[in-house]
């Protein structure tokens, strides 16, 4: 790969040129992956979109370090990620709020951080929410697969989940410079999360009381949840139509109801097609909040129209 040196202020420190930086993974925490805006254009052949599960927090992290949209960042699940900078690295932490230490100093989420060569960034366990994002100025420059650097845990495309000892190159810094030191984001996480959902496409496969239960009851996020989808515990959602649905395309946010009755809310790594009926679909704007619901969170679905 042809790497250019950085431009502008990132290029020199005390008149000396600094080679492009990198991040060394000292500890990944429970699960950390590289994510960007997703893998597009290959759905017809079974390649899912993947990408940051909480697209809003991911986008905010990139904006803070003045990256172009779509630059790859890190998605840490339940904190625990420890990184060491090689060279100077500008970073920002967003998403599930967690204790942050940068270069041994206390730091905050949603502010621009400078890591000098050898300094470490530590993410503690988040107080609320599930997924914390670390963007670095220049983006995480691992090789793209089908146009994206996202790790798709369902299909296995993209880089493997991070392991201690991985060294992640940081890309060429953009021309733009951070304009804000910090940016307020929406509150992330909570014990009870309200999500707008549009009924269908297969609500007619369910008994009327199933639709009532979906909109009246609370559903708890269970531990059997990951980037593919969240399994929810709640009242049964009885069917009106028996039999099998021919496999059909699915979108993120789909509430698919398998025969065991526990609905699955599909997230970023969801399968491209599925064979169980979808009773409702969470609207796109609410998906980032859905993706921040950790096990134990109660979800409430409110009917909205398209």
């Amino acid at each position: 790969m042809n790497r250019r040196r950085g431009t502008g202020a990132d290029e020199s420190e005390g008149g000396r040129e600094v080679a492009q930086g990198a991040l060394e993974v000292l500890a990944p925490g429970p699960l950390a992956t590289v994510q960007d805006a997703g893998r597009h254009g290959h759905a017809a052949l079974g390649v899912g979109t993947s990408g940051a599960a909480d697209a809003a927090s991911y986008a905010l992290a990139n904006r803070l370090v003045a990256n172009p949209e779509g630059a790859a960042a890190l998605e840490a699940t339940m904190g625990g990620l420890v990184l060491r900078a090689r060279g100077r690295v500008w970073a920002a932490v967003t998403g599930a709020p967690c204790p942050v230490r940068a270069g041994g100093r206390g730091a905050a989420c949603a502010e621009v951080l400078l890591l000098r060569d050898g300094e470490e960034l530590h993410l503690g366990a988040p107080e609320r929410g599930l997924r914390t994002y670390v963007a670095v100025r220049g983006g995480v420059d691992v090789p793209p697969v089908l146009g994206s650097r996202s790790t798709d845990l369902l299909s296995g495309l993209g880089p493997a989940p991070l392991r201690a000892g991985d060294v992640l190159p940081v890309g060429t810094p953009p021309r733009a410079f951070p304009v804000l030191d910090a940016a307020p984001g929406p509150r992330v996480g909570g014990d009870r999360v309200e999500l707008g959902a549009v009924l269908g496409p297969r609500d007619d496969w369910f008994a009327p009381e199933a639709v009532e239960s979906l909109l009246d009851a609370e559903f708890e996020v269970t531990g059997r949840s990951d980037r593919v989808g969240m399994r929810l515990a709640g009242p049964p959602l009885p069917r009106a139509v028996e039999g099998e649905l021919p496999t059909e395309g699915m979108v993120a946010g789909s509430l698919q109801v398998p025969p065991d009755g526990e609905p699955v809310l599909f997230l970023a790594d969801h399968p491209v097609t599925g064979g169980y009926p979808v009773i409702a679909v969470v609207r796109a704007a609410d998906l980032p909040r859905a993706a921040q619901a950790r096990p134990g969170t109660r979800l409430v679905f409110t009917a909205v129209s398209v």
Partner: protein
Amino acid sequence: MRVLNCGDSGVLVEVADLGEALALQAALAEDPVPGVTETVPAARTVLLKVDPGAPGGARAVAAAAARLRPRPGALPRGGEVEIEVQYDGADLGEVAELTGLTERGVVEAHTGAHWTVAFGGFAPGFGYLVGDDRRLDVPRRGESRTRVPAGSVALAGGFGGVYPRSSPGGWRLLGRTDAVVWDLDRDPPGLLVPGTRVRFREV
């Protein structure tokens, strides 16, 4: 034809059978619906993925989809691919028994048929092929194999297929090909994109 919502990020168009689904794909290819970012064809549906932020969003896409008039019997346009096959598959004899053809007859029917990729699924790069020779309509095996080698050319459930990579599978194996149907370093990565016309040739 029914047009169903998938929230604000998709529109699912449903038809009665696979023939109508192919005609619908053809209509969508001839007359693309503005605002659609990706399509996912399936056996009786085509999912139109929508950018929720686009003007009009899913509502505009649903309205445009409702105006589509698929022509019965139409097939989607696509590239043409010839796949070279060594017909030495483990299930060739069984397929001959099931179809009432000889093994040679199965090979001739498979190479003589005109195939079209109807939709993807099962694994990245796997295309479900429909052919014009109904004699080759055989059921899946009673038991799946834990490992079917990449390049296996197979039949099941009224479809043909080529395994993009080694995986478990319950289709009946006719033979194998050296053709690489899925390559992440190629653009496009898949050889068997929906709409592609396929002929098999014996080598």
